[in-house]
């Protein structure tokens, strides 16, 4: 739907612009009991940090398995379309928003006296802890936040490569765009011990790589962010191109669904572990 695509493009814009809005210094939080989230990524942090009965509404994307890392946990929660009027009807004591796409709504809610916390969008893996802590502080669950961060960092350490072996990888998406240098996905590739080949294709943060380049200079690991039939869109034609099938038969490839790394939440660790395992297999084969 329109709002979902809007929010996703906001996320892509976040990756493109590289902006990291400062978190307003909020007053020391009590424990808000009617929390509304207007952002897919904030939804997922909120769900992990507070009891369900304190969540008044999340976005309808939170339960969508195509974009949410934890759709099953979001099922059954009330949803909001994100319009200010919709939010006011719920009468929340805390509103979580993302940094992009909803600034008019955020301004309006603040003018009407609602407490709004804008959750930062991490630009790299280092920003994940900041995002968790900002939500944890806002909802008064600092200890649970720290536990979440500690678990994430423990598993992150487990993914870190233990040799100098650095195979190349490319994250190839619907429409042929790849995650280039400076993107969140790029830092995920680096943390899992890969060198992002997108830089060699002379692409910047986002950009479309011609299939010809992919064929002329194939990566050691082709990472596919979606399946061709996952979305009904003309843009998925590139994933159906015989060249992609051929690259998959000839070299290593994995599917790394978007939902796992779209948001800079600790759930990205599952994507990292899959990348780490793929790197291990490549290393074993190289020996």
């Amino acid at each position, binding site marked *: 739907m329109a709002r*979902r695509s809007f929010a996703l*493009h906001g996320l892509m814009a976040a990756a493109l612009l590289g902006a990291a809005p400062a978190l307003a210094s909020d007053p020391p939080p009590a424990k808000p009991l009617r929390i509304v989230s207007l952002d897919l990524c904030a939804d997922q942090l909120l769900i992990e940090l507070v009891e369900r009965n304190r969540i008044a509404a999340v976005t309808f994307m939170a339960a969508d398995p195509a974009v949410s890392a934890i759709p099953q946990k979001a099922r059954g929660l009330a949803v909001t379309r994100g319009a200010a009027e919709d939010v006011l009807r719920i009468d929340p004591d805390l509103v979580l928003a993302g940094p992009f796409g909803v600034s008019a709504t955020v301004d309006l809610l603040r003018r009407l006296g609602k407490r709004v916390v804008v959750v930062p969008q991490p630009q790299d893996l280092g920003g994940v802890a900041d995002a968790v802590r900002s939500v944890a502080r806002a909802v008064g669950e600092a200890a649970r936040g720290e536990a979440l961060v500690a678990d994430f960092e423990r598993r992150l350490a487990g993914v870190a490569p233990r040799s100098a072996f650095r195979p190349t990888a490319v994250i190839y998406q619907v429409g042929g765009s790849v995650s280039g240098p400076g993107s969140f996905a790029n830092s995920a590739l680096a943390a899992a011990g890969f060198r992002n080949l997108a830089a060699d294709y002379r692409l910047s943060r986002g950009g479309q790589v011609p299939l010809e380049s992919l064929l002329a200079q194939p990566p050691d690991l082709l990472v596919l962010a979606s399946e061709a039939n996952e979305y009904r869109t*003309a843009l998925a034609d590139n994933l159906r191109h015989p060249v992609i099938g051929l690259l998959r038969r000839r070299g290593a490839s994995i599917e790394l669904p978007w939902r796992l790394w779209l948001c800079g939440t600790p759930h990205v660790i599952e994507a990292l572990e899959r990348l780490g395992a793929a790197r291990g297999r490549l290393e074993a084969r190289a020996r």
Partner: protein
Amino acid sequence: MMPRLPGVEARNVRLLGALAAAVVVAFLLSLSVGPAGFGLSFPGEAGALIFREIRLPRAVLGALIGGALGLSGAALQGYLRNPLAEPSLVGVSGGAALGAVLAIHLGLSSALALALPLGGLLGAALAMLAVLALAGAHGGPVTLILAGLAVSAIATALISLALNLSQNPFAAVEMVFWMMGSLADRSLTQVWIAAPLMLAGIGLLLTVARALDALTLGEDAATSLGIDLARTRLAVVAGTALAVGAATAVTGIIGFVGLIVPHLLRPLAGHRPGLLLPASLLGGALMLLVADVALRLLAPWVELRIGVLTALIGAPFFVWLVLRTRSELAP
């Protein structure tokens, strides 16, 4: 000595021969250009694949779609006796894109690949009929353009609605895909599903050559020369819908080729619509192939969309045509 075909003078043979030779050169150039380097053969299996799976479909679609657009433009201008007629300006391309969008988003094209060009064909035919009904048989150039604008606006709005309603996070990007066509990363599969329909449309449009020549004398004179006006109309509508509908379904809207090419070739074709048809078929193929080569040379690391380039060239040309038409129509 070849037997002289009636109406085919040496000058015409030279024109068509020169255009055909230029198309062959442009086709080979298109095969030679790409991010992996210049040339027609590359070492190894990857080289053969680049050639067969990536550059060949691109060059074939460039030639076919350019030809289909150039020919449709010439046929529409000849049949409507209107210098501003062109598939994208009269709403046929917009209708085709709408049909293709519906075929994809209703899931028809994933069930049956042929549903995609058929959707484009159906949308193009409906748009064409709507424009003819709106503008009427004797509406002037301005009426036709206004009718085309209206039909295009409706098609664009419905495409937008379909994309908004689909569970699809790429709606905004896909809008650009349809509005500004591209030949990049098309596959032979798409050639196979679109080419037969496009070729059928091209063949149908070429049959109206004699009728268009006769129509320059007016409808009554054409009828007295034995031209079946209803059949001509059907051939123009069906041919354009087949050619433009199937083309647009696999690449998105590529505008203005059908406007520019017939105008550039008309003086060379001796202002005879019948000869202008095959000339515009070849000229359209030439223009699109050259434009596609140019954008890959100018901006090798950006996937510049060919629809952007043809619009950048075509829109100023359109302005010039409007100014000229206005001065001709001025009392």
